[in-house]
């Protein structure tokens, strides 16, 4: 079983397919759960603490906006843990509530730089593309098993 980072990190489809074919999806829910369930003196207003932008310095420089560093405090450890990645190219849903575009760019850049098996594709728009989409992911995940 490999740890597969999914981008968009909140994707229902990718999360389900990775788990369905026997691997562990790494998405933002895991980091947020860790934050939400950790006791301390710093009360997170939403899910971030004031320490998070400092932790994010490991992945983004100090002149980078604190929002990006804060988000990287969530995604950075997951990317480091990842053994494979599935990336959707320019997903519409990744703009807006999921986070800022710059964090997404940094995230995809880090995944592309990392020496791990990677699958990049687009969301399907027809039934035929749906078959190709699922087949690509299934084949990719099966090949991961063989490599292990």
């Amino acid at each position, binding site marked *: 079983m490999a740890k597969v980072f999914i981008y*968009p990190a*909140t*994707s*229902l*489809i990718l*999360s*389900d*397919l990775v*788990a*369905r074919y026997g691997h562990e*999806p790494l*998405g*933002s*829910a*895991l*980091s*947020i*759960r860790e*934050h*939400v*369930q*950790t*006791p*301390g*003196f*710093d*009360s*997170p*207003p*939403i*899910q971030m603490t004031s320490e998070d932008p400092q932790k994010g310095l490991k992945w983004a420089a100090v002149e980078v906006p604190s929002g990006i560093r804060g988000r990287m405090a969530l995604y950075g450890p997951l990317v480091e843990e990842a053994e494979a990645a599935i990336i959707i*190219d*320019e997903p*519409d*849903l990744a703009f*807006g*509530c*999921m986070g800022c575009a710059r964090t997404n760019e940094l995230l995809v850049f880090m995944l592309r730089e990392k020496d791990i098996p990677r699958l990049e*594709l*687009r*969301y*399907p*728009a*027809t*039934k035929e*593309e*749906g*078959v*190709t*989409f*699922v*087949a*690509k992911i*299934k*084949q*990719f995940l*099966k090949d991961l098993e063989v490599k292990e």
Partner: protein
Amino acid sequence: MKPYVPEYVGTVTKYVFVDSPNTTPQDIATAAYEIAQGVMIKETCFGCQITGSPEDVDRIVEHLRILDPYRIFIKDRGFPPGDSRRCRADLGGARPGYLGHEYEMSFIRYISHGLEETEGMNKTSLKKAAGEALPLEEPLDADVLEKLFSEEK
């Protein structure tokens, strides 16, 4: 600084989504309640949310998948149900979010079709199907761009 005491430590929460003509969210919730054994189930308009120990949640999730394997989709959730930071009962109105789910649910039927079709495929046909190219967005033609610029004037 106010001490933060988290609730439901050590639990996991999973969303269960269903988009099927044969299985309703109520069917899903009822099936989950039947084997809940103390696990928290929250019925929703799209399926349900399950909160409990990882083993219990996995047991229920495995059971639910069998009901309609190609049309039930499951993912993790960070917050437990009713968390005051996310629950709209505390926020005083509609909550932000679910936009991603809404977007993906708009074409989830293609994924269901893909799951159904690839299920019976042998190694060779799966490899062939996986080798098909997914169309990429056409880059903007330079001539069209030039035309657009000239229109601006």
